[in-house]
């Protein structure tokens, strides 16, 4: 391990969707559903963009710190100059999440916390044995559970790999409409399952873990998203309103998501023309401010359709600072 001081630290988080989560693309599409969710443009696997997380975390942190609504949102003041981000050196919201203006001057601050996209780590699928949580090598590499150089492709592409212990000895298993041969001879799986458990993911999930190829994972996820159909009710008739039927999709309840927060050292920044950041003193302090939003995330949720039972996410584990050495200063 390098003894050099770090300019930042990266902390890992994982969470389980308590409700379906819908982070929409902002428009309707021709296709299977009307209102689609955000996907990775290449893998086509749904994700929650870092910009969505940053905004939600900011709002909830502002609530926790009693800085809502002024220090949440875009932060533009009213025409009379009232409101907007306070931009104070001792404001935990404005220093950690940035602000759009300085006090009595132009300029701003980019913020000390950077949020990665939330990626699907484990995806729940119905099977004849009940729900199974599926992942793939690409998802594992993105989380840092396995280094890209260490985790290659699966030996066979059209097979479901499961653990030997606790798994019922079935030669094949259906994952939604896909019927796959089951094998238990993929060696890295034991270690991967252990690392997933260390993230704080409950045993009822890790005991039903399965790994498929990257290519199959895309199909399994996209074939098993929750799709709802809604219609507006005409209050005059109490019946469905004409032409108001629409469908929307969401990540299903039980999906395990993984993301990282990179926290910069506050000592390396000055705001408002030369003031030191006073609200936080270290990357760990930045993380502590961000985690204030987690209880709100579990109750108020993320994404759209929050008034229809969607969006709640329970954050499972906060990696301790000493364990979270992903600062790019690894031993060579």
């Amino acid at each position: 391990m390098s003894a050099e001081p770090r300019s930042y630290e990266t902390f890992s988080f994982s969470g389980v969707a308590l409700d379906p989560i819908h982070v929409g693309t902002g428009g309707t599409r021709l296709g299977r559903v009307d209102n689609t969710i955000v996907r990775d443009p290449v893998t086509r696997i749904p994700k929650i963009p870092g910009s969505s997380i940053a905004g939600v975390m900011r709002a909830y942190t502002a609530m926790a710190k009693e800085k809502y609504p002024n220090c949440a949102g875009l932060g533009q003041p009213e025409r009379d100059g009232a409101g907007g981000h306070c931009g104070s050196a001792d404001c935990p919201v404005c220093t950690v999440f940035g602000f759009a203006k300085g006090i009595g001057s132009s300029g701003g601050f980019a913020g000390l916390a950077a949020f990665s996209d939330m990626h699907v780590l484990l995806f729940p699928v119905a099977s004849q044995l009940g729900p199974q949580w599926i992942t793939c090598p690409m998802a594992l590499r993105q989380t840092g559970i396995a280094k890209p150089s260490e985790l290659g492709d699966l030996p066979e592409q059209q097979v479901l790999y499961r653990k030997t212990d606790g798994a019922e000895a079935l030669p094949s298993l259906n994952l939604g409409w896909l019927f796959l041969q089951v094998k238990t001879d993929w060696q890295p799986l034991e270690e991967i399952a252990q690392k997933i458990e260390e993230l704080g993911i409950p045993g009822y999930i890790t005991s039903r873990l399965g790994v498929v190829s990257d290519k199959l994972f895309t199909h399994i996820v996209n074939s098993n998203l929750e799709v709802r159909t809604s219609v507006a009710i005409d209050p005059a008739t109490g019946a469905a309103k004409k032409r108001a039927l629409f469908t929307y999709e969401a990540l299903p309840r039980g999906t395990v998501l993984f993301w990282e927060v990179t926290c910069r050292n506050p000592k390396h920044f000055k705001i408002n023309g030369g003031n030191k950041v006073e609200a936080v003193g270290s990357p760990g302090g930045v993380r502590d401010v961000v985690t204030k939003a987690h209880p709100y995330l579990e109750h108020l949720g993320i994404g759209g359709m929050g008034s229809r039972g969607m969006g709640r996410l329970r954050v499972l584990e906060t990696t301790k600072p000493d364990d979270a050495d992903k600062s790019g200063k690894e031993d060579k």
Partner: protein
Amino acid sequence: MNMTWTALRWVWRLEAPLFVGIPPAGALNRCRPYVPARTLWGAVTAEISRSSNGDSFPDYRKRGEEIREQCRFTYLFPAEKRGDKVLAWRPLFRKKGLQWCCNGGEEYLSDRDFRRRLMGSRPGTAIAPESYSASEGTLRETECINPWWRDSNCQEETSAVLLLGYVFLRKNGFRSQLDNIDTLFVGGDTRYGHGRISRVGGHKEAGDVSVFGKPIHRDRENPGIQSDIIWGHALEGDWQKKQMIQGEQELLGGWNQGSPWRGKLTWAPGTFLTESAVWSIEKDGYWKHQDKNRRERK
């Protein structure tokens, strides 16, 4: 011969989408499909200043000047791994317009096809905290380089997007600081997780004494590349009266710490000349034409 400059080849892997902005088009925040030298200089300056300064406030300006003096960067171009080789895609203006070439000119893609393989976009809107709904007038789309290549026929496996470029070091200065950098944050929207790149392997000296397959000059005040294609932004000058040029021009501008950086009219990467010339890489990352009769000497 005792060379002034050491050329190192470096390869980076995108850990997240990358956004290097150019002036937007309406609600679309457009992105460059490469990383300019000046952007890279800023990212390297920030990282070296912070990691070598412990818990005290770094002197960014001083360290930045030192790096400008001691290091010169080529642009980082998107690359992909094929077998043991890392092959960069570089721009080239041809009769059909801007194209991207790879594998020593054996493969070409139109700019449209190349961008389809490399880039994506993501929508976004601000949420008004008082109403908890989309804030009026804030819907926009941000273009970015994907961490994964789209395959050309949607059948093959996707591969990671790499960035390949070179850095010149004067008398090997800053070598240890550069070797210590494994992760960099480049470009914009880094608080949304964008721009995180990690180094693949160690820095390798350009063993065949070439940069992007072109001969280099390492014994001058500024490092030079002999090429008939410009892979940076090249300053205008008298040289352009003497040859045929295929390319496009761009006015570059930006900010230095606390003050505007006066841009200059330049020829954009991919500009093609009828005759090969020696180009020096200047402190700001510009490419500057070296007149055959008045080449700078140490």
